[in-house]
Each structure stands twice: as structure tokens, then as C-alpha cells.
């Protein structure tokens, strides 16, 4: 686990925020379990996890609404534990916007500045700039209840940015919006982050949103971070079976190690990436559906070196427009899903015998896993 959490790519930079050995208990329930994490200046980091995984609790501790049971929160080397929320200089966007209903859009945005007793002209200038940034100039006099959900959320973002906080926290800010609007706002947010260079910590349970927005993703499960890295790394090289099954779709094949780079799977020998594990140990192979190919039995295509091939029977074919999803069952009863491009090939029918191929380099190998990790339903 610790190997996962230490991120080597940005280790040189001193972190803006350091969470160290953070715990939060509610009675017997462990919401956050010995969590350590570095957040770097200017990065867009997303906490991704299902509900109850501790991501929102961690964010609340960062904001100061929850006090950690133990552990330390450091911002630029200074402890935040005993600093009340209003002195933390952190911006936050809430899931249900939480605008001040008694104030206009302008009043909402200028609220943090009024509290800080900024000079009137400076306040005016900043509010105007923010209204422009979130494109709500013509709505400045309206009450929040007179705005749409997307507009309200833009006001909330403006309110959180206007006092130029060091860190912006966002707690599932787009969760209440419909899909189209959500995607538009995701793009806006990404551009905003690029323009302002502010550090953003974003909480979501939507992996697509996490991928679309963030530079780094921290995957939460049972109060721990079980995967940390760029979306690409986490998807292509999941550090463990949980992350593999949580992010995207995955096929798992259980086998026994017969050599440094070979596995016995249902009476078939498969090549894998070289492992440093004892012989005869159980291993789990993970192949992404889009990395596997499905071919009819009589296809003349030769098997390339470094590729594996197994035979299986098609159980279902689903057409999805840009792809075909083909479910197959091996003679040993393992189920695989293969994403095939619907071109050139002879159509596949359920019941047909096929060959399934993948490159050994595309399969990830795990020596430890929980049965619960493998079913996607367990993650939700």
C-alpha cells in the first residue's frame, strides 16, 4: 500500500498540503483510516470513491468542519488542526451550492470580501472580474432562487474564488446537474484551473468526471487511498485488483504461476510480464476488454509473439454504436468481456466458438486480492 501512496513523479516539489496519518472515527466506524497524502501546489487532485469511502470526510477535515481523531494536516508546513474554518483561507464549493438565499448573486460573491473588509473599489473590481469569469454579468442582481442549477453552481465557484484562497475544495459540485450541463461545466472547470493555476481538491464518485478533470486521482476505499496517480496510469497499470475493477471494465483470470513469466490458466499456458514471485503461487491476471481481441476459430491471422490465445464460447453480443461488446465463457467457466470494433469481421453469434487474444504486456498481474474486489458491485 505504501508503495502506491508515494508518488515518485512529483516528489521533488515540496507539497502545499500534507496529510499525515489522518484518522477519523465515529464510534466504532472508521471513516478515514491512517491516511497520508501530499497535495502539490497548483495541481488538480480528485478524490474518487464510492459513498462511505471516506473521501468527503477527508475533505471536511481539510475544510475544518470535522476534527481528525488523530493525525496531522499541514499547509506549507503549518498545522491546520486547531485553526477554525474561517481562518483557513480555503475556498469550498458545496454539492448543493449552499448560496446565501437572502443575498443577490453580487452579494453572494462579495460576501467573503465584505467579511475581509476590503476597500469598496477593490471589492467592486474583483466581483466584476469574477462575474465575468463565470459569465454571469447580466444576472448579478438576481437572487439564487431565480437561477438555474448550473448558474447557481457558477456563482458558488465565483464566491469560492473571489478571495483568492490557496486551495479550492469541491465536494461533488456537479452531482446535482444533468449530464450535458455537467460535461460543459467540467470543461469550464478544467479551463479555469489552467488559467488560474489554483490548487483544486475535487471529490466525486464519477470516474469519468475524475478522468476528465484531474491531473491526479486518489482512489478511496474504506477510508484508505488504494490508488494514486494520473488517470492514465491508474487505468493502464492499476496498482491492485480493487483499482482495476473500480476503474473502467476489467476481466480477471485466476491462474497458478508456473515460471517467472508463465501462468497455468485452465490447462492452458499463458505468457505474462516477468514476475518476481514464488512458483505455484496463485496469481490474478487482469485484461482490459479493449486490449483483448476476439477472432472466429477459422480466422487465418497468425498469433504474434508475446500474445496469448485462449478459446471460448460467445454467450452474448451487444452492439453499442462505436463498438461491440462480446461476452465469452472459457471452457473452465471464466467469463470475459471483449470490446471489439464492428468492422471487417464476420458477425459473431452467441454460441459460436472463438479465439480470444491479448498481448502479455497488456495484462496486469496481482499476487494478492480480495474476492470482493473482483465484482464491481462490491465497489458501490
Amino acid at each position, binding site marked *: 500500500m505504501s508503495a502506491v501512496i508515494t508518488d515518485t513523479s512529483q516528489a521533488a516539489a515540496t507539497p502545499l498540503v500534507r496529510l499525515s496519518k489522518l484518522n477519523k472515527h465515529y464510534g466504532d466506524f472508521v471513516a478515514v483510516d491512517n491516511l497520508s497524502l501530499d497535495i502539490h501546489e497548483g495541481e488538480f487532485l480528485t478524490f474518487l470513491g464510492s459513498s462511505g469511502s471516506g473521501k468527503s470526510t477527508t475533505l471536511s477535515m481539510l475544510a475544518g468542519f470535522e476534527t481528525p481523531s488523530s493525525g496531522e494536516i499541514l499547509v506549507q508546513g503549518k498545522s491546520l488542526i486547531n485553526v477554525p474554518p474561517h481562518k483557513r483561507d480555503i475556498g469550498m464549493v458545496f454539492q448543493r451550492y*449552499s448560496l446565501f438565499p437572502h443575498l443577490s448573486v453580487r452579494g453572494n460573491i462579495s460576501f467573503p470580501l465584505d467579511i475581509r473588509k476590503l476597500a469598496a473599489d477593490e471589492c467592486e473590481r474583483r466581483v466584476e472580474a469574477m462575474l465575468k469569469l463565470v459569465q454571469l454579468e447580466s444576472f448579478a442582481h438576481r437572487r439564487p432562487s431565480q437561477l438555474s442549477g448550473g448558474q447557481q453552481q457558477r456563482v458558488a465557484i465565483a464566491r469560492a474564488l473571489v478571495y483568492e484562497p490557496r486551495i479550492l475544495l469541491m465536494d461533488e459540485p456537479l452531482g446535482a446537474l444533468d449530464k450535458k450541463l455537467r460535461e460543459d461545466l467540467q470543461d469550464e472547470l478544467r479551463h479555469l484551473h489552467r488559467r488560474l493555476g489554483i490548487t483544486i481538491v475535487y471529490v466525486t464518485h464519477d470516474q469519468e468526471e475524475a478522468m476528465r478533470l484531474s491531473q491526479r486521482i486518489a482512489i478511496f476505499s474504506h477510508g484508505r487511498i488504494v490508488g494514486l496517480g494520473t488517470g492514465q496510469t491508474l487505468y493502464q497499470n492499476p496498482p491492485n485488483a480493487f483499482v482495476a475493477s473500480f476503474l473502467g471494465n476489467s476481466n480477471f483470470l485466476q491462474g497458478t504461476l508456473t515460471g517467472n513469466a508463465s501462468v497455468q490458466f485452465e490447462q492452458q499456458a499463458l505468457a505474462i510480464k516477468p514476475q518476481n514471485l514464488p512458483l505455484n503461487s496463485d496469481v490474478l491476471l487482469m485484461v482490459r476488454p479493449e486490449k483483448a481481441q476476439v477472432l472466429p476459430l477459422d480466422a487465418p491471422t497468425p498469433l504474434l509473439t508475446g500474445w496469448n490465445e485462449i478459446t471460448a464460447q460467445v454467450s452474448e453480443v451487444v452492439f453499442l454504436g462505436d463498438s461491440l461488446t462480446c461476452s465469452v465463457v472459457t471452457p473452465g467457466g471464466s467469463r470475459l468481456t471483449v470490446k471489439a470494433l464492428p468492422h471487417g469481421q464476420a458477425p459473431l453469434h452467441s454460441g459460436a466458438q472463438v479465439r480470444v487474444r491479448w498481448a502479455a504486456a497488456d495484462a496486469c498481474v496481482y499476487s494478492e486480492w480480495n474476492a470482493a474486489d473482483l465484482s464491481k458491485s462490491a465497489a458501490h
Partner: protein
Amino acid sequence: MKMAARPTPAANLAARASRAPTAQSHSGEQAVRWRGATYLLPALLFLGLFFLVPLLGLLLRGVLEPTPGLGNYEQLFASSAYSKVLFNTFAVASLVTLFSLLLGFPLAWAITLTPNGWGRWLLNIVLLSMWTSLLARTYSWLVLLQSSGVINSTLQSLGLINEPLAMVHNLTGVVIGMSYIMIPFIVLPLQATMSAIDPMVLQAGSICGASPLRSFFKVFLPLCRPGIFSGGLMVFVMSLGYYVTPALLGGAQNMMLPEFIIQQVQSFLNWGLASAAAALLILITLVLFYVYLKLQAESPVASSTAR
């Protein structure tokens, strides 16, 4: 009488709307709006016969007896004894509103904040006190406040005072007793308003940099405003016309308007002056009610529920 005749044109309108399809959209809307009006008839008839007609009669007495003219009103404002009654009424109503707000606000807040079960219990206690007989509650205050009462004898035995404090049969007693009686009328609307406030909005206030004190004054209090206004105005209006408590806890020297009206009617059979005073009370109440309606329409909670 006039009221009773009202639904008839509406019914005509509805009939016309169904006959004239060209004007359907506008008058159709009107017809829908007035469709249920006939069902109002019994209530309007009742109100007209037993409320409006007697009220009109009362108001007429104010300008007709003993001689036609505005003499009664002149008397009411000219005489220093009568204007003192008016002053007492307003002073007591204002003080009662202030004290019941000061006591009711924290109570409503406590009910809102306490976890479900206990909050309900607190609310039930408030309701129970409201449902207990007014006379019983007022007499209990008499027991507590009189010169040989619980409070005075306790304070005397502690050596804090030598002479019993005069806390009853004067305006002090009236203010104390009425503030207590009015608390539920503050707590109920205020608690409803407070429980409708999203607690995340207060968190938003604090993350924006507002200390708990500033959050209270700049976010929480403005959001409670509709409850404060509706509760406060209700208490103020009710206090203006309250009779039982002032009659029992107040003194003969410092009367309030309702006591004055009863005295004029029962002791002096001066219906003219009593009617004028009653008319004044009604006018004040109507003006306050108008103010209340105006403020309610502008309140943030009203606009958010309108959505």
C-alpha cells in the same frame, strides 16, 4: 349582505366564458379562478351576518353616540388619561414582543439544533404550555409574583431584598405574564423558519471567512428574518388586544386599551367612546397586518418556496 351577492357575477362570468370561445384564454382563466366561489357562500354569509354587520354597528356607534361626529375620537386623543392608555398599550405590546423574541429565539434555536427526539419533546412542552388554560397560567404568575409570592419570599429569605418587590398589579406584571404567554407564538414560526435553513449555508459562511459571530449576524439572522417578523407581528398585534392577563396582573392605574374599552362599556355605559377605542385598535391591527403581508412577500424564504 353585499358579500353574499359576490359570487353571482363570477358565476355569470364563467357562464359567459363558456359561451364566447373567442375570449377563451383570458376569461377562461378567470372562470377557473372563480370556479369554487359558490362554495364560499355559507362562510361568507356567516361572516357577514355575525361579524361584519355587528362590527359595522360598533364602528357606527363610535361616530353616532352620544352625538354624531368625531367627538369620541377627539376625546380619545385630547385627554391625557386616555392617551396614557394608548401609550401603555403600545409600550406593553412592544416590550412583550421584545422579551418574547429575546426568550423565544434561543428556544427555537435549541429546538432546531437538538437531535430529533429531544427537539420534538421541547416543542411539545412549548405546545402544552400554550394549550393549558390561560386563566390557570395567569393565576400561577400571580402566585409567583405577588408580594407574599414565591419569588419575593425566596429573595427575602436569602436577604437580597428587605421590602417585597412590586411585580404584580402594575405594568411589570403584565409584561412578565404576557411575555411568557406569547413565547409559543414566537417559537412556532421561528422554529419552522430555522429548520428550513440549510445548515450547509452556515458552513459556507464560515469557509468564506466569517467567524461564528459574523456568520450569525450576516447569514443566520437574515435567514431567520421571516420567522422573526411573522412571530413578532403576531405577538404585537395579539398583545394590543389582550385582555385576560392585563386584567389579572395589571393595576387599575395603568390600563391597556382592551381594559379601557371594557371599563367604558361596563362601568360607564359609554358605548361611543368604547367603540372609538375599538375602531382604533382595529385600524392599528389592519395597518400592521398590511405591513406584515408586504414584508412576507419580500422574504427570501417566500421567494424560494414560490419557485
